[in-house]
């Protein structure tokens, strides 16, 4: 198992944003992480990536405990993530944005820049690489965010809603990129709201609701799981109100 999440919990004041969640990921799998708004998906990413430590439980990367490490160490160990609200470096060029990522593996700048170019080509963002982060469209920002994380050459890459706010063509392009990343022997955890999309790309799906894991299995089974349907229906009722 490349990533083991063992009984992690995180509390904000009186609210358990993540409650006793466990799952494991095998190398080179694509895991879809879904759940209604506020289910705790982003918080789980924050826990795994070392943004804050869990109140309880442990995270292991390749058998090594990482849940007591600071975020930058976790990245150096080979786990990268993107942010739901993208955080490009606005006053750096697209190329420099990505180069910051590659510098984690290639300390010498010329090499890092070369690697950054390769990554940009890979995500098809190489045109206009001299533009500033602040000049990009939403779709481009999401892609830049992904490129930058990818540039740190992770073994596990966690994507937080990289397809939210994209149109159909853009979603399809992003799916293509995600599949290509998998071919590079990178394990992926993907948070996504669009059901059809996540079903098509994931090997396995983990479902969260109100901080807890409520289902874990292959897409077909999860889609027919009554608890999952209930959790989502609950949300729809809320949406109508």
């Amino acid at each position, binding site marked *: 198992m490349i990533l083991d999440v063992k009984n992690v919990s995180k509390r904000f004041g009186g609210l358990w944003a993540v409650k006793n969640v466990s799952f494991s990921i095998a190398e080179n799998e694509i895991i879809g992480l879904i759940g209604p708004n506020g289910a705790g998906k982003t918080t789980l990413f*924050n826990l795994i*990536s070392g943004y804050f430590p869990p109140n309880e439980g442990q995270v292991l990367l390749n058998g090594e405990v990482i849940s007591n490490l600071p975020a930058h160490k976790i990245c150096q160990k080979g786990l990268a993530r993107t*942010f739901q609200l993208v955080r490009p470096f606005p006053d750096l060029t697209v190329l420099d944005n990505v180069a910051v990522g590659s510098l984690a593996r290639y300390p010498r700048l010329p090499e890092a820049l070369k690697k950054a170019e390769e990554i940009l080509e890979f995500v098809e963002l190489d045109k206009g690489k001299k533009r500033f982060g602040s000049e990009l469209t939403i779709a481009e920002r999401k892609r830049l965010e992904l490129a930058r994380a990818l540039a740190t050459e992770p073994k596990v890459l966690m994507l937080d809603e990289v397809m939210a706010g994209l149109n159909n063509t853009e979603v399809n392009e992003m799916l293509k990129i995600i599949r290509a990343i998998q071919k590079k022997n990178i394990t992926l955890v993907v948070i996504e709201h669009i059901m059809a999309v996540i079903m098509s790309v994931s090997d396995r799906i983990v479902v969260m609701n109100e901080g807890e894991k409520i289902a874990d299995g292959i897409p077909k089974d999860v889609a027919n799981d009554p608890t999952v349907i209930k959790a989502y229906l609950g949300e729809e009722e809320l949406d109508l109100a």
Partner: protein
Amino acid sequence: MNEFIQVIVSGILIGGIYVVVAMGLSLMFGVTKIINFAHGEFLMLGMYAAYFIYKFLGIEPYTAIFIITPLFIVIGMIIYKLVINPIVDRKHEIQIFATLGLSIVFQNMALFLWSADFRTVNLSYSTATVSFGDITISLARLIAFLAAAVITAAMLLLLKYTYVGKALRAVSQQNTAAELMGIKVKRIYLIAFSIGIALAGIAGALLMPVFYAFPTVGAYFSLAAFVVVVMGGMGDVTGALIAGLIIGIVESLSGFYVAAELKEAIYFVLFIIILFIKPNGLFARKEAK
């Protein structure tokens, strides 16, 4: 022991004025998220205003508040339109330097127009004292404190019960949400800024009978106000109330028991310590989204 109480009491009296200065600063920060580095200079201008009103019109500073308040609201509106409005959404270095620039302008304008001389007003009761048991208090300071208390109370009532007050609080909590509720955020910024400036001017008037005016007097008081605001919780007007009194007492104690010269240093150290203990102030729910 009596000496100690005496020191505490005079600390509380001066603290009352700090509360007024700090409330203005805190309100501005809470609503616009801009720290006004020129706040002390408005206090300085308030002192000069009170001085000249007394000199030329013979109106006592405490009465002059009724002239100074509308005057400073207008000044605040003008400054807001000219300087603050263009920078509200800018990077913090821009905000810092725009307001720092203002403070340089006002300080030196005062120096140019009114020279570096110390100015005082001598009221009939300037040297009068009142005694409670063993403690003696300067009457002028007591009046200044009471006036400060009235103004503070008025301010708190305004924030709590009026529509403007509610809007101010809504914007200071979350301006996007407030915008959705139909509050004109920029209008509220203007109001907060003008009220803040007026409070600084009023504090200047309150101080005039017990202190002296000179061009850089504002730096001295704005420092205290910064400490108070940070201590009270950035943008928290009620917090400023308690913190203001505490800082008054700290100042009084350190001036008496340590060394008057080091009073400022003690402030600053306290300030740094508070900043460290309460790092982000009001800023940002720390959340990686």
